[in-house]
């Protein structure tokens, strides 16, 4: 189940978006999060919407995968809508039930904010659906590289991320093994009252922790034996390549931004 949450996210496909450099994708997402706040009327929101769906189309990701990522946050979108609907007190009163008044501005803001939310979620899911975790790690490492001058441990962070990614399936397998071992010894994980079930996690977590620390220590020794001594003087095997598509995509986003600024009220 957990595996699906983390790894089932990436959907391999041979699309323009998949082939893009993770750096440009990360930059675009970051800029998108900023420019979405420029939109403030129907026209500009439509531009954002068209842009989002155009990207989804280009990624060739089936809609059901996007829906899978959206489902858990959909109620949040609805909640935001209702919040805006009831608590904005501007414009003309549309509905008056005495104890609740709904204003025209409230309806408008409700739609705007929830759409903003909706598009943000779509775009960020698109990133994780079209980019492998390790690509994202490499992209982040490369983008954050200038921070090295400020002594920010960029390389160490990226290495930590990639090692965590590498060990997630291993720990998953191990959890499964320990779980079976404990079930064989009579621990009930799936039934019983809630408190009992929470308590049942303890004999699962403790062996897992103990073995993880052991793993960490052995891994550190193995890394040292293989000559690891920090990021300095290290070369990289995996390489990112900035392609024309990436430049075009960024340019396109710039055009969208200009349109947004021009059409905003």
């Amino acid at each position, binding site marked *: 189940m957990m595996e699906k949450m983390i790894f089932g996210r990436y959907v391999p496909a041979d699309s323009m978006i998949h082939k893009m450099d993770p750096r440009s994708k990360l930059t675009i997402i970051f800029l998108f999060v900023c420019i979405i706040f420029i939109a403030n009327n129907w026209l500009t929101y439509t531009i954002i919407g068209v842009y989002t769906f155009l990207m989804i189309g280009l990624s060739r990701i089936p809609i059901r995968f996007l829906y899978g990522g959206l489902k858990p946050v959909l109620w949040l979108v609805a909640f935001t809508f209702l919040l805006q609907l009831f608590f904005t007190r501007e414009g003309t009163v549309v509905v008056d039930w005495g104890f609740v008044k709904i204003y025209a501005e409230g309806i408008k803001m409700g739609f705007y904010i929830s759409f903003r939310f909706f598009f943000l979620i779509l775009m960020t899911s698109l990133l994780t659906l079209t980019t492998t975790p390790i690509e994202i790690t490499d992209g982040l490492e490369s983008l954050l590289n200038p921070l090295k001058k400020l002594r920010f441990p960029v390389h160490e962070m990226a290495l930590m991320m990639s090692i965590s990614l590498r060990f997630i399936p291993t720990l998953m397998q191990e959890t499964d093994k320990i779980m079976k071992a404990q079930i064989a010894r009579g621990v009930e994980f799936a039934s019983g009252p809630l408190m009992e079930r929470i308590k049942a996690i303890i004999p699962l977590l403790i062996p897992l922790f103990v073995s993880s620390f052991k793993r960490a220590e052995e891994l550190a*020794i193995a890394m040292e*034996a293989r000559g690891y001594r920090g990021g300095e*003087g290290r070369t*990289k095997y995996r390489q990112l390549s900035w392609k024309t598509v990436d430049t075009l995509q960024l340019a396109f986003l710039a055009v969208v931004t200009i349109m947004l600024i021009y059409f905003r009220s």
Partner: protein
Amino acid sequence: MSKAIVSLKEVTFQYDGQERNALNHVSFEIYEGEWLAIVGHNGSGKSTMAKLLNGLQFPKEGEITVSGMKLVEENIWDIRKKIGMVFQNPDNQFVGTTVQDDVAFGLENMGIPREEMIHRVEDSLKKVKMDTFLHQEPHHLSGGQKQRVAIAGVLALRPAIIILDEATSMLDPRGRAEVLETVRTLKDEKALTVISITHDLEEAAKADRIIVMNKGEVFREGTPEEIFSMDEQLIELGLDIPFSVKVMKAFRKQGISLAKHYLSEEELVEELWTFRSRM
């Protein structure tokens, strides 16, 4: 005998907070191009030895020399370039997210240019017959395959010495055979020196020379034949003698004498099926 590539002189080592020395005045030499097995049961100091040879720990007393360099803190990185290590747990030494990334890890550490890296990664994976698994993730590999990737990772660094620190103890018989076969071929091909630290005497039986460790000291040193002739003593040291030796012992008890004191499994089979015709 060819010249010594590693030599230990009066090496003593003690872990912090322990009364007994893990190693006690240990001296021996390892010769270039040989396959040396260091055997001993748990706590005999054999794994400590591996850590010392690679500068992961430093001796309290005594001196270790690796290909002419005295092992001190200043040159451990040069020495680690000469010595490749394969550890016990296949999972806990797999650093990369895929097979190729893992092999490249050591090369990245050494700052090898990328073009050279690609070449070396491919080459060393071919040597261990894992070149079709380039993009495979570790959790889809068997233990034996992971160990072979680990060997490729070591090989890519072009070391002179490979240390197998219980590298086959967590593998099934097939994985064990795979790994040992790979190391054997590579050793012959590249004139490597192999130090295998193990408690499996079947594995040690394939070595050129065996050092038996007990309580932090060198108990006995010799060829497999010499070592296995002290069978009772080996059992007292908590080591299990190889199957072929057990069978031969049983034959001797029955008053049937075989040609040599020690035979490997294959030799024993050969001996047995030709036994009558020689009588």
